[in-house]
């Protein structure tokens, strides 16, 4: 099962959980499962970047997940140069 680790900002929306393990083949499936589990989180991850085992994808909704994947959601990484 993929393990989602929440930032402290996100914890306020997931009943204080630090992490959760969920079955999901792709990031988009994981997001749907998270929204179902934590209604307050709904919509918050729609534009988020996702880090899967350390690789950050600005648009990673359709990235595949491994059963051992560790996932973080964060602000999109861009920059000024």
């Amino acid at each position, binding site marked *: 099962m993929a393990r989602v680790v929440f930032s402290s*900002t996100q914890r306020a929306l997931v009943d204080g959980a630090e992490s959760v393990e969920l079955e999901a083949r792709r990031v988009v499936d994981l997001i749907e499962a998270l929204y179902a589990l934590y209604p307050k989180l709904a919509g918050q991850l729609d534009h988020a970047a996702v880090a899967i085992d*350390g690789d950050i994808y600005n648009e990673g909704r359709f990235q595949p997940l491994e059963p051992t994947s560790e996932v*973080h959601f964060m602000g999109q*990484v861009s920059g*000024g140069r």
Partner: protein
Amino acid sequence: MSERKFKYVGTRPIRHDGVEKVTGRANYGADVVLPGMLQGAIARSEHAHARILSIDTSKAEALEGVKAVVTAADFPDIPCEWKGGAAGGTDFGELSRNIMARDKVLYHGHALAAVAAVSPEIAREACKRIEVNYEVLEPVMSLDAALAPGAPILHPDQEPMGIESEGPTNVTNRLAFEGGDLDAGFADADVVIEREFTTPMVHQGYIEPHACTVRFNEDGKYSIWCSTQGPFSVQMSSAIVLAIEPNLVKCTPTEIGGGFGGKTTIYLEPVAMLLARKSGRPVRIVMSREEVFRASGPTSGGRVRMKLGAKRDGRFVAGDCEIWLEAGAFRGSPAGAAAMTGLSSYTFPNFRIQGYDVVVNKPKVAAYRAPGAPISNFAVESCVDEMARELRIDPIELRLRNAVQEGDRAPYGPTFKAIGLRDTLEQARNHPHYKTPLGESQGRGVACGFWFNAGMQSSAIVSVNTDGSAVVRTGNPDIGGSRVSLAMMAAEELGIPVERVRPVVGDTESVGYTDLTGGSRVTFATGMAVIEAAQDAVQQLRERAAKIWGVDAKDVKWEDGIAHGCNGAADQDPMPLKVLAPKLGATGGPVVGRAQVNPAAAGPGFATHICDIEVDPETGRSQVIRYTTIQDAGKAVHPSYVEGQMQGGAVQGIGWALNEEYLWDDDGVIENPGFLDYRMPVASDVPMIDTVIVEVPNPTHPYGVRGVGETPIVPPLAAVANAMRAATGVRFEQLPMSPPRVLEAIDRNGR
């Protein structure tokens, strides 16, 4: 990857666009001229905070030579809606209101109306004749003023994100990262350093002001020529702001005279589009330098409270960093990035980092080279320096004892792969600069810095010409030498000299979608697309040679620009591209390679800087006398342009540290909107910046490339401040360390 022997990558060819630029022939934003073109000008707010009661443009419209006038009434009322989460996003309603004020003006210089006329003088005169009735409101000009009880609220209807608020507030967002047990960490610390730092709002300071020219056709299509870092984002943003289909907008990027993030947004384009539509003639608008300062994106002023706990042996056990950043008139400071980068150079078993976004009556901030990171890094690295002093540990040694390496987790979540921070620190420790004795009134400072680097979407087309040369077409305006770097990567794959590869920056109708030039991503991500497109072309060339020889493509290999038969075709005479290229028509037509990528983030960038400074105790004037930047580039494609990025970032950071700041009067008016009074470093202010390129290959790129453009502006604020501490005995917690402030501090310190 790292074992590959390169022929062109790692060399220093002359850039393809060099001749046009040094001879003055290159066309920048303000150089576009179209038949019948009108000149635009913007009428701007006289107040920093006011309600707009009425705008009367009749006297402007009556002026001879005026062809069109627009105000917010001509713009669709795009609803203000945050597209994104607490960690970042966009609000096109607010973008629209920043481009043209609606209901309220939120900073001095906020656009109120625009005029197109037959000459710039008439357009400016017409702007003066526009009459505005205001209800003047108290301006909010600092974080303290914004956060004070009873402060005027810029956006009373806006709901903050990430915080509970009992009523309207100027705080729009809070982002936080935590790990371990902070209280236990500090309780375990032998030494705790806690300080509060402030940095001023500063401007990117690009040489070329914002400029655009727009033509509107009777079929409803707009053509935009402008100085931008992202033609596709101009196309998309302008279309959204005007509520039209993006396919009605074509954007052609001109040459760009600097951007540093400031040209990743739009100011003039939708205004010129409306003026062109209304007048029926092309319209050009060029900002003056004063307008650039008053009304285009600076970066945030900030306040950072940093608390650092360590054991006697130097191990960091706790870090607590609280960042407050001015967003300007609309939400969206880089508080998130400042938070995500602030503690990322070191391992902290217990940490908390919080970023707050605060609106004030100043220009809306735009991206500026590693947005937010220099501000939080200034606080963290200043405290690390203090900790080294307290523990009597060499500052590089202390950093090495805590520096992140492969396998360590960043405070914002992900685990680092191969990174080069420790390598840069080792190189710094062994550099002659670090061992050179200092003279009287001189001090040396060290600081590290981190930036994520971005990946994002890119596409590339590599086409082979009939003479065996090639064209590389991408959609990224060339800010820092990316044309030649992309050509070098194509040359490497095709096996032909880089001079025979022509790099072209396309418009939005001649290349596939490509995200903007930003996030230090072009050589990494667009480079990856170029490599794959060139490999696609090479595969096609092998097939064509196979066709000529009557063999299978697997029996043809491509080496150094020459098709060689192998396996059953080993007896074929090698066929160079110059010989093969004229035969492409007879073997199936042109060879065009293409590729598109959306890679994961580009491999983090780390740097260590060493700064020597000399301070005149009589006047407080300081001079950076030696400066060395050491940075992990993964693989330097064109070392001269990597070094140029390192030097440029260092100089911008030195300016931020020593001199740059906006001066505001009590009414919120900028008093120094020009390079004479807004003091950026010039060549005579800084020594030659020494560079050391470290190459720890990035495992996510075929050549090992990392972005290099932003990291070098992250360490200098602290490197200079730490040098200043060593030279004067004073820990400067407020930037800039300008001569009056330094003199006052020295006097206060009793020296």
